[in-house]
């Protein structure tokens, strides 16, 4: 079986082809042979894991690796330890590629990590996309392949299934054909009893013209609008970072923008089209709106409410983790970010810290608790670095600045021939 084994410290991946009947020690020996080092590495000192935390063990030294739940295509992690191996039987039978466990999980055997920094908690979207890359990847991929996998993840996230196979995987052998690829998706809720079978399938066609990648989507069956998304390949470069262990803030923001274009330009209109054609209830009204408009509504809410909306469902959780939005919230609540002294990996973290500090200070110094929407003003400036004067929450609806000029593809349904999001 072909396995990818990635070093936790060096972030490099080694590809190994080991027979399914080989033992865990055989696999480690094979890996040790691939590792270049000043001194030969004893196979016994190698720690293998499917999820970075739980070490793979076999109850008997002769157990084949296939009995541990490993299958071809799996991604494993390794590190090299100087301590003797502890004997604990923790058979990991989950054949899925690496899962991320919560960082605060206690009571499990942990692998010894050499020079591994604390696991960075990715945003929900980045975690989802990294998993998609691991599942569908496995070979050297170019920009187009990264884009196809991301778009595939967007369709799965919107409730679509791939026609054929188990529904969640791209067709076998898709990668070499990416530039002439055609994909077919159907909605999970559509059953097989409708008379017009074709009207349940959304077809996607890809084409590459110069540096632009275009995707056309339409519902099969003849009379249907088509939706198009056209993207500059240069804008897709950040998707390549999803195969690495670190995605910078800037890259995350760009990926988030691409995700919204895919969702608003293709997934959502196709989903609504299929529902209409099959007389199914369309997704709940609010969720039918483009991400652009949902984000606009979120930008009018105080930070605590953005969190509450983000706790309603997974799609809104992703939308509410937009760091641009949290930067705006920070500036509204705590003033300019130029003299910002709060630490944090992203703006949401900084907001949370500042909020907690302010709330704690108010409780201890003034004996008041924060009531939703109304902030009691302190009589003294306790933290000179923060602007503690809150935005006025008037009873009358506050005016918004004029709407950002995003091309909103959802607006152009039912007009035959449609131009979607363009970056």
């Amino acid at each position, binding site marked *: 079986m072909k396995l990818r084994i990635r070093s936790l410290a060096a972030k490099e991946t080694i590809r190994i082809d080991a027979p399914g009947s080989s033992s865990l020690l055989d696999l480690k020996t094979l890996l040790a042979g691939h590792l270049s080092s000043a001194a030969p590495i004893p196979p016994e000192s190698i720690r293998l894991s499917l999820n970075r935390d739980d070490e793979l063990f076999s109850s008997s030294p002769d157990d084949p690796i296939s009995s541990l739940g490993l299958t071809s295509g799996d991604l494993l992690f390794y590190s090299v330890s100087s301590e003797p191996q502890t004997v604990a039987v923790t058979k990991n039978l989950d054949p899925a590629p690496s899962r991320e466990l*919560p960082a605060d999980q206690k009571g499990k055997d942990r692998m010894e990590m050499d020079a591994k920094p604390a696991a960075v908690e990715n945003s929900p979207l980045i975690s989802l996309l990294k998993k998609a890359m691991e599942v569908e990847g496995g070979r050297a991929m170019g920009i187009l392949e990264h884009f196809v996998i991301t778009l595939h993840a967007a369709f799965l996230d919107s409730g679509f299934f791939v026609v054929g196979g188990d529904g969640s995987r791209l067709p076998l052998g898709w990668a070499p054909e990416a530039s002439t690829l055609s994909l077919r998706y159907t909605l999970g809720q559509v059953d097989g009893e409708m008379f017009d079978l074709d009207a349940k399938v959304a077809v996607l066609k890809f084409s590459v013209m110069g540096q632009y990648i275009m995707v056309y989507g339409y519902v099969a069956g003849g009379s249907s609008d088509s939706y198009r998304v056209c993207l500059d390949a240069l804008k897709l470069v950040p998707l390549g970072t999803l195969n690495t262990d670190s995605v910078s803030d800037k890259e995350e923001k760009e990926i988030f923008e691409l995700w919204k274009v895919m969702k608003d330009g293709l997934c959502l209109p196709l989903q609504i089209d299929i529902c209409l054609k099959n007389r199914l209830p369309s997704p*709940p*009204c*609010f*969720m*039918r*709106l*483009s991400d652009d*408009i949902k984000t*606009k*509504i*979120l930008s*009018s*809410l*105080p*930070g*605590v*409410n953005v*969190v*509450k*909306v*983000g*706790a*309603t*469902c*997974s*799609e*809104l*959780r992703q939308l509410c983790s937009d760091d641009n939005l949290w930067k705006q919230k920070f500036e509204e609540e705590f003033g300019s970010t130029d003299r910002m002294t709060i630490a944090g990996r992203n703006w949401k973290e900084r907001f*949370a810290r500042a*909020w*907690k500090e302010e*709330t704690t200070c108010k409780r201890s110094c003034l004996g008041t608790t924060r009531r*939703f*929407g109304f902030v009691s003003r302190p009589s003294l400036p306790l933290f000179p670095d923060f602007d503690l004067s809150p935005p006025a*929450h008037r009873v*009358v*609806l*506050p*005016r*918004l600045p*004029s*709407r950002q000029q995003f091309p*909103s593809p*959802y*607006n152009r*349904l*039912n007009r035959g021939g449609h131009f979607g999001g363009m970056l």
Partner: protein
Amino acid sequence: METSTCSKKIVQLRSSDGQLFEVDEEAAMSSEILKNMIEMGMPSPLPLYEVDATTLAMIVESWNRRLQEKRGEITEAELERWEEEELLKSKEPDGDAICVLLAANYLEDEHLIDRAGEAIAHHIKDMTVEEVRDYFEIENDFEREEEEKVFQQNAWAFH
């Protein structure tokens, strides 16, 4: 686009459920979609496939009032008050503000999109997570562990 009192141009609109509405052409121009249809000379009645009669009636009235404000017949404050108190008041699921926002989005009426969006934000400011779900008719699709994680990570916002 004549706006003199002698010869006002009227356009006919048809809602998704077949009801006909007559509206001042200038008022209808608040919608980019209708503006394009009118300029392209599409025949009346102009079909609006995604706006039902109830919502269209409210939207047509809002356009008329905006036209009145533009002509100085009512003040901006009066227009705003009507929009808040009449057009966008309901907090029920599938209530006025959401219907208006969806229709305004379809019609590409920037002003109404903004106003309805603000109204919705105002409505949900006092809501708990569960109430927001009911209001937007969203299904909770979190696994239990995932949901616990969300609340743990954001505990600061729930006190």
